[in-house]
């Protein structure tokens, strides 16, 4: 089964939220999901202990640089989708996880700083593609976006599109329910109502479907 790596050298870009929304969404749609927590802040592990874990999901904690390749190899043949949540720094662990990816998701807030630092991940992927002599599909997802796009957001989006970067639609909007995942654990279907739940579920579901299309090749 495919491995999705959620990577950005920038902290606070929304990696763990993206990973949890994707993992819970895929599990809700019937997939078996293994979440690999490589972040020293242990965000996924904290989330997994807050509430009842959704069915068909499992979290592996504290996976290090020397263990990451073996951990992915051990799980990618048993019918499970692997989602790797990485630390928000530039490290060898990030590079090794990307080397095992079928899709790299790069969450990014629509700010110039996030775009500048996030671009380092794009550069790393392109260099790894050359070193490994294989294509590593990647897509960028804007996180914590507002209902009305700022000029900065539109400018960054236009710039990436012109460079041929795959942008996931819809972006993940700034929603109370998304941040509350780390307060209540579980998924959007099990948590107490937070803001407009219907819109949050719709946003997350469309995002998961967009990622699924990339994993099946339908998005190309």
């Amino acid at each position, binding site marked *: 089964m495919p491995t999705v790596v959620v990577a950005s050298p920038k902290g606070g870009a929304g990696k763990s939220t993206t990973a949890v929304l994707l993992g819970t969404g895929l599990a809700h749609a019937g997939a078996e999901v293994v979440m690999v927590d490589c972040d020293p802040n242990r965000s996924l592990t904290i989330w997994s202990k807050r509430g009842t874990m959704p069915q068909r999901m499992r979290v592996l904690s504290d996976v290090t640089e020397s263990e990451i390749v073996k951990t992915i190899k051990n799980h990618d043949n048993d019918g499970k989708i692997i989602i790797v949540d990485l630390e928000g720094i530039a490290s060898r662990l990030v590079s090794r996880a990307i080397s*095992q990816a079928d899709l790299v998701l790069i969450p990014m807030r629509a700010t110039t700083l996030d775009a500048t630092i996030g671009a380092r991940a794009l550069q790393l992927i392109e260099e790894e593609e050359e070193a490994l002599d294989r294509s590593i599909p990647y897509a960028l997802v804007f996180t914590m976006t507002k209902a009305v796009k700022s000029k900065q957001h539109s400018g960054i989006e236009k710039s990436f599109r012109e460079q041929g970067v795959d942008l996931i639609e819809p972006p993940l909007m700034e929603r109370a329910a998304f941040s509350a995942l780390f307060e209540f654990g579980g998924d959007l279907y099990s948590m107490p109502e937070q803001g407009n739940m219907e819109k949050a579920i719709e946003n997350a579901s469309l995002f998961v479907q967009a990622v699924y299309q990339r994993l099946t090749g339908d998005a190309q």
Partner: protein
Amino acid sequence: MSNNAFSIDLSRLKKQPKTSSTKDTDQVAEELGFSSREIVKKRGRKPSPRTGQVHAKVMPDTSVEIANEAKRRGVQQGVLIEEAWQLYKQNMATK
């Protein structure tokens, strides 16, 4: 059907063959500043906290006995001297 409801067809998911070797990617990563952040453990024996010294000349048979006993217990000879000193202090305290 609502936009939220969809199910996954696992047979349609695509996976690429990958190598387990990290040699090439590690080098590329290093050049781009993605270097190892793991703490490298120091190799070898930890330094002993026993930094004090005694200057003792003893009879040859005593020296051999102390050496053999330390070897049997797997401790430094200084440990036996420390234990002997504790016993001496206890003994003096009860007098």
